[in-house]
């Protein structure tokens, strides 16, 4: 019996689901979409089991090996991202089943069919990015993900069209800058394979320009301040499950590629000053994003600006990562932060979507009138907020603790201060939302926005269970960290004394 080709399966299964959901009638699309989601989840589980038991995996697709064919590759870093995406995705799918069945107003059947196709395409391309072993395959998956995301945003109707258009321009130009870097690398070294390139790469002006171009392109797609201008409108105006997908998963994919390039391909380059620049922008992002979040009048805008702030942490980690003493812990911290934020932000946007569906609007002024009726999703929001603030025992706490350890090892007290103060700022804007659970007042009937009577329970529960996962990431962090160290993507395992 030939072994199961898990690496291509994690891309092909959701892609097949997307095709099937696109051709069946809109009414059956939900069933097909849910089944495909479950199948993809199970396939990801299979790949994780293979990685766990046999170490890093390589697979030449169709028997054609590099450089002519496409070689897929997965190590612990890929595995952790795949696992996070699968977990968030399964709850997003469950939520969507309720959202398009009465939970979200004004949805038509046609939208529902489109949603499932596009969502499964985006999931397939996310998985494709995590298992890609070469630069060009990463480009193709990234474009597929970008186009799918643009169409998903546009599903929200006229209010989201401009945000979708701006996101389209951003995602194509970011990808083209990345492709420019790929052209320079191929022109200089004639290879695309990440591992081989890492061995032959030299520090020349060509490789420096290539890294600079790719970094700018990917930073634009990850929405680091000041290139975040497109994110809040796009993430806040998209349909609720789409907001969760964009904020929790899609921005992490470009960050994943960036880390891969910096460590695996351009490891020989002296990147100390560039790390300094990225970390400074990251620190600005934490403060600027948090302050903007506090100023918002709409719940989903607040959560979107919180993403701008939280992305800052991923880049602050670049500073200790540029030192010899702090590198391994800093990369571990950044990777853990990416998955902890993915789960917490996914739960947050899902609960915000449930609140907006119940109240009929996500303006804070309207929330005040309905405080008592949205107790469950507000509770979910608070639980997810624990992870965002980085309180123990959440996954966010473990991630921030790793970042603080890295800062201490690299002797960079400023990094530690930024990480700590950022947590306080997150607490401020999370409490601004929770306040509405206690501040409801009697309002005149004509003041009330039009609300749907009840929302399907599955929406509330999907959000709540995902919030529990984000807390569980802190309680059982030894397993994900051990998974992360399969194949040692960051050079060395996390030290024994540091294992959470």
């Amino acid at each position: 019996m030939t072994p199961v080709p898990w690496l291509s399966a994690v891309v092909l299964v959701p892609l097949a689901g997307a095709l099937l959901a696109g051709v069946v009638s809109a009414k059956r699309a939900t069933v097909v979409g849910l089944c495909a989601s479950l199948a993809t989840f199970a396939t990801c589980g299979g790949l994780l089991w293979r990685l766990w038991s046999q170490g890093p995996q390589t697979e030449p697709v169709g028997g054609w090996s590099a450089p002519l064919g496409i070689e897929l590759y997965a190590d612990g870093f890929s595995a952790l991202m795949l696992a996070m995406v699968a977990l968030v995705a399964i709850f997003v799918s469950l939520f969507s089943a309720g959202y398009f069945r009465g939970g979200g107003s004004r949805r038509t059947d046609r939208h529902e069919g489109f949603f499932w196709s596009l969502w499964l395409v985006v999931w397939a391309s996310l998985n494709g990015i995590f298992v890609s072993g070469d630069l060009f395959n990463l480009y193709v998956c990234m474009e597929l993900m970008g186009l799918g995301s643009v169409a998903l945003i546009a599903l929200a109707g006229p209010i989201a069209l401009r945000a979708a258009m701006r996101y389209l321009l951003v995602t194509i130009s970011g990808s083209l800058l990345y492709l420019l870097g790929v052209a320079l690398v191929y022109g200089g070294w004639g290879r695309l394979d990440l591992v081989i390139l890492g061995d032959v790469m030299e520090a020349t002006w060509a490789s420096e320009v290539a890294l600079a171009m790719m970094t700018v392109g990917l930073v634009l797609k990850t929405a680091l301040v000041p290139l975040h201008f497109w994110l809040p409108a796009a993430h806040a105006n998209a349909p609720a499950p789409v907001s969760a997908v964009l904020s929790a998963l899609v921005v992490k994919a470009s960050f994943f590629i960036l880390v891969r390039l910096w460590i695996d391909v351009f490891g020989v380059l002296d990147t100390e000053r560039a790390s300094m620049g990225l970390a400074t922008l990251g620190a600005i992002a934490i403060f600027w994003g948090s302050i903007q979040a506090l100023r918002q009048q709409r719940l989903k805008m607040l959560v979107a600006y919180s993403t701008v702030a939280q992305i800052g942490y991923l880049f602050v980690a670049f500073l200790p990562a540029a030192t010899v003493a702090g590198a391994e812990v800093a990369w571990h911290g950044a990777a853990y932060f990416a998955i902890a934020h993915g789960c917490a932000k996914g739960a947050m946007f899902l609960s915000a979507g449930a609140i907006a569906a119940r109240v009929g609007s996500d303006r804070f002024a309207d929330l005040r009138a309905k405080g008592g009726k949205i107790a469950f999703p507000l509770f979910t929001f608070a639980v997810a907020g624990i992870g965002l603030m980085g309180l123990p025992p959440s996954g966010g706490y473990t991630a921030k603790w790793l970042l603080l350890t890295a800062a201490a090892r690299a002797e960079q007290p400023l990094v530690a201060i930024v990480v700590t103060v950022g947590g306080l700022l997150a607490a401020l804007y999370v409490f601004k939302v929770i306040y509405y659970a206690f501040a409801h007042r009697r309002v005149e009937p004509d003041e009330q926005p039009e609300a749907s009577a009840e929302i399907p329970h599955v929406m509330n529960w999907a959000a709540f269970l995902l919030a529990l996962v984000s807390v569980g990431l802190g309680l059982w962090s030894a397993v994900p960290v051990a998974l992360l160290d399969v194949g040692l993507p960051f050079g060395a395992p996390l030290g024994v004394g540091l294992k959470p």
Partner: protein
Amino acid sequence: METELVYAATGIALTALGLYALIVRRHMIRRLLAVNIMGAGVFTLFVSLAADVPNGVDPVPQAMVLTGIVVAVSATALGLVLIRRIYASTGSTRLAEEASILDALEGEER
């Protein structure tokens, strides 16, 4: 060798022009065209950089550029549909009332 350099320089110039227009233009179709010109520049550079092999031409960059063109065509089609929808619902051909992407930094409050 000189021929390739001419192509490479053209590619870089086109990319820079496209990026410039993307940042300063306000009309959405102009911005979409700017992205396409940027793409054309990157593709030209890609093909010219890889032409420098002993026995004829390296086919791998050609295949990659072909894939890139397919992606660019789909993205352009999607962009044009979005522009039509925006025009139908707002009557405007601009992404927002701000002058350029740089001014958009402050314009996201809605």
